């Protein structure tokens, strides 16, 4: 058993998100922590995990120390089962071949909507962010896991702009918008793991990370959280998880 301080926030994030994946699943992973966490899961509990990348890759098996700088680089294709067009790999999501979409996030709100387009008023933005990439498609078309740093400015009541839809305004609003399948499933942060209420579709804490208090989570969140009596505590990273993760990212490109 490890103690807090023996691992970085990035490491905790990668390991906790890796644990969300199940063997045999087909996972569409974004660059950064998702790519790393999916690769970690593949080396740990999910040898039969199939990882998809936006560049057009099915069933890659990333090599330690050779993490790709984007999901469109040749390194993503290492020992892949198939390489195909970018539109084709996104159409797999639309057709329904993918179990889980797995992304990072810049800004998220209580309904799991993600913003990676604008900070401030989109008409006259303070910051123009890079935009959706495949994020909008992934979150529109499959069940989502998001891994991100927990900061108050990132966990807001309403995002400035919905780049990648979660449950939109909660309740039935997602399916009413025409998004019939998928939806936000889990948010993993360095403070806690969240799910979404089945009726209201608001973000709900499921488990606190080791050593983290409810107050701490609430303080770092821009909207009201409702902790239930059965909010659990996540298991800290094991030595095996940490050593495997560090082997994968020896240059600490993503784990900080």
């Amino acid at each position, binding site marked *: 058993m490890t103690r807090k301080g023996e691992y970085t926030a990035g490491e905790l994030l990668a390991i906790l998100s890796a644990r969300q994946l199940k063997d045999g699943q087909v996972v569409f992973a974004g*660059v*950064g922590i998702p790519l790393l966490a999916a690769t970690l899961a593949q080396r740990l509990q999910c040898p039969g995990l199939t990882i998809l990348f*936006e*560049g*057009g*890759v099915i069933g890659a098996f990333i*090599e330690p120390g050779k993490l790709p*700088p*984007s999901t*469109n*680089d*040749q*390194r*993503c*294709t*290492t*020992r892949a089962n198939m*390489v*195909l*067009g*970018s*539109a084709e790999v*996104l*159409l797999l*999501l*639309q057709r329904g071949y993918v179990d889980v979409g797995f992304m990072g996030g810049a800004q998220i709100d209580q309904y799991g909507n993600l*913003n990676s*387009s604008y900070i401030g008023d*989109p008409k006259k*933005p*303070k*910051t*123009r*962010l*890079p*935009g*959706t*990439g*495949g*994020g*909008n*498609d992934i979150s*529109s*078309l499959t069940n989502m896991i998001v891994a991100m740093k927990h900061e108050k400015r990132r966990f807001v009541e309403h995002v400035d*702009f*919905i*780049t*990648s*839809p979660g449950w*939109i305004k909660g309740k039935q*609003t*997602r399916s009413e*918008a*025409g*998004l*019939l399948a998928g939806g936000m499933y889990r948010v993993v942060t360095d403070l806690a793991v969240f799910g979404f209420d089945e009726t209201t579709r608001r973000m709900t804490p499921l488990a606190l990370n080791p050593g983290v208090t409810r107050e701490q989570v609430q303080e770092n969140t821009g909207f009201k959280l409702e902790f239930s009596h059965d909010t659990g505590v996540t298991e800290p990273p094991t030595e095996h998880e940490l050593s495997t993760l560090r082997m994968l990212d020896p240059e600490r*490109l993503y784990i900080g």
Partner: protein
Amino acid sequence: MSLVQPYLKLRKDLAQRDRSLREKVVSLEEAVSFVRDGDSVGIGGSTMSRTPMGLIWALIRAKRKELSCSRCIISSDGDLLYGSCASDHIVTSWFSQGILWGVSKVMRHFVETGKARYDEWSHLAMGMRFRAGAMGVPFIPIRSMLGSGVVGQRPEAKEIDCPYTGEKLLLVPALNPDVALIHVQRCDAYGNAQIDGLQFMDIDLAMAANKVILTTERIVSNDQIRRAPDQTKIPFFAVDAVVELPFGCAPHECYGVYEPMMRHMEFYVGLVNKDPVAGMKEYLDKYVYGPKSWTGFLELIGMEEVLEASRAGVSIYDA
């Protein structure tokens, strides 16, 4: 010009292209003469992969203006297009230098000050726009973008109720660029092109565009092409010019040939992140306007980095 070209216009433009089996090898400088000021330009590859950097570099040197550029994901090539004022309008799903370096300061400078437009579509929407263009139809329906802010900014996309299922669908309009710029690993002198590894949206882009300029790592014989016709990805009659341009994606990567030249990229990002205007000017002066030729640009990147990138590039076949 209307958003979606009328079918007869599309057909007429295509009918006028010389689609006969003919050699079309030209110099890099001649190739960019196929692009006119104000053209809509589709760019092949994605992010830092198989980017037709040589062509973009030559377009900037030729002082092209007011290009409307589209690419599935645009990276430092987008910076250069904005920074050189070759383009004031980019249509894409993601625009930055690359995930490693944070948000592009150049993109931010141009977009936030209103000097240039960045139209955002989802990645799938970009793909289906090129695909509809390639297919000769005005739109394709998709199931993403619905309910988001992205669609709210794109009145060009039309929400409909499906006449079969009653479900909501989004129609995305065909994108038929005036010119497509595409880099491939090899093609023949007629333009029959093979693409190894990741293809991105290049095939649809090539078939959608009204002109296609290819740069290629090397020109091979037509005999070699005909020996494996199922490896041809772009047919010769869709291609209007071919340029043999080794390392034509530098400092980005070309699948199986070279990985990105990361030290040069780091240097570039450092320069423009410090000052997106002055840094960009310094970069353009030294690396784009400075060299006598593309080979001169490669010399500035340096032999060591080029060799290193090549060694990493071919290593994908060892895995």
